[in-house]
Every structure is written in C-alpha cells, then in structure tokens.
C-alpha cells in the first residue's frame, strides 16, 4: 500500500494496522527518513511532487519489490508540503515470514524511491532557499539492484 500525504504518520499505529489479520508475519522492518539540518542553516524544507505520477511510480516500485521478495505486507508513506528539521518525511515498512526479505526489500524500496519517485526538496534558511541536488550515491545505490538481478 502507498500513501502521499501532508500530515505526519504514527509508526506504531501503522505497524499495528499492517499486522492486523496477518498471522504469517514473522519479521517487520521499518525505515523512517527525516529532515536533516547538518549545518544548522535549514529552517524549512518544502517537498514538491508530481500528483498522479507520484502515486503511479510508488505503486510500480512497490510491485517491483513484491515481485522480487515474498512479502506478507508492504507500506510506503511519503509526506509533501512544508516540513521542519527532524520532521518525518518518509516511512517504509515491509513484513515477511523471515527477516531477510523484509530487510532487503526495505532497502530496495528506499533506493528505488530515492531515484524514481517524483519528489523535489527545497531547503530554506537565513541565507535564502535552494533546491536540494540529487546525490550520485543514490543513483549508485539504486543501480546495484540491477547488478544483483543480472548475477
């Protein structure tokens, strides 16, 4: 399941909902991405996205994870709008019978989301605002899953 929303999410409540009625789950992995203010100059982070394509792309990414691993459940929640340092941005939860599928698929989902889901971050602070630039390490992280598939 995927959701794009302005409001915050409650990780505990999301996991309770995900587990409900699924007794085959033996492992749950949750990843939360938050707003970072490394240099102390970020007051706000605005998250723009492409409504329609965002949901379509997150669904494609989720379907890809479900095709690669045996998952009992999967959840992606991504926030949009104006956030502040330490606010939650994204939640990925994966559930499987054994831990390996949950760990690996959670990492895969984040790597793919980082390079494919149409979101753009703009940081603002005392020195003005700037669009966050894409990180080449994210592209490399996403690419390694193709390598695995080819092996």
């Amino acid at each position, binding site marked *: 399941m995927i959701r794009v929303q302005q409001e915050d999410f409650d990780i505990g409540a999301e996991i309770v909902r995900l587990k409900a009625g699924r007794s085959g789950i033996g492992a749950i992995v949750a990843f939360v*991405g938050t707003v970072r203010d490394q240099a102390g100059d970020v007051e706000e982070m605005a*998250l*723009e*996205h*492409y409504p*329609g*394509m965002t949901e*379509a*792309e997150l669904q494609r990414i989720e379907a890809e994870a479900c095709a690669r691993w045996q998952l009992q459940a999967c959840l992606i929640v*991504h926030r949009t709008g104006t956030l502040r340092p330490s606010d939650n*941005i*994204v939640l990925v939860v994966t559930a499987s019978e054994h831990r390996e599928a949950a760990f690996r698929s959670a990492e895969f989902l*984040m790597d793919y*989301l*980082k*390079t*494919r*889901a*149409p*979101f*753009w*971050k*703009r940081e603002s602070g005392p020195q003005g605002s700037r*669009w*966050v*630039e*894409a*990180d080449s390490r*994210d592209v490399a992280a996403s690419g390694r899953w193709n390598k695995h598939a080819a092996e």
Partner: protein
Amino acid sequence: MSTRLLYFAWVKEKIGVAAEEVDIPSHVTTVAELMTWLKTRGPEFDHAFARSEVIKAAIDQAHVRHDAAIGAAREIAFFPPVTGG
C-alpha cells in the same frame, strides 16, 4: 492535437509556469527534439533547458529517456533529478 506540458522544481521556476497546453509541431518526434524546440519559445525556455542533458522527462506519468518517441502522448513533464525520500 494539443499536449499538456508540465514543469516541476527549478525547471518550473525558470520557465515561470507550472503547466500549459501546447500544439507540438509535427517535425518534433522525440523528447530531445521537444526540448530543442521548447528552447526557441523564449529566453525563459532557453534558460530552463540550457543544460537539457540533466533534465528528466516523463510521458503520461512514466519516466522516459530523451530518445523516447512522443507518439500520442497526452501529458509530458520535465523536471530535475528527483530528491525525495
């Protein structure tokens, strides 16, 4: 037939509009050709697409490469590399 063009993040800021309906000339058949043609529509477009190699594109809400054919696209979007998550 007109096509809906969408712009996001700094591409949108440089152009000054988020969306428009455009009649694409028949000689423009790929995403790369569309960017080249858009650059001729004014200084703001020339500025936005100056480094067109870094700009990403989507046709009907799916990622495509610059050599992709426009075909019967209803919606084409241009944006910088994504930075979500």
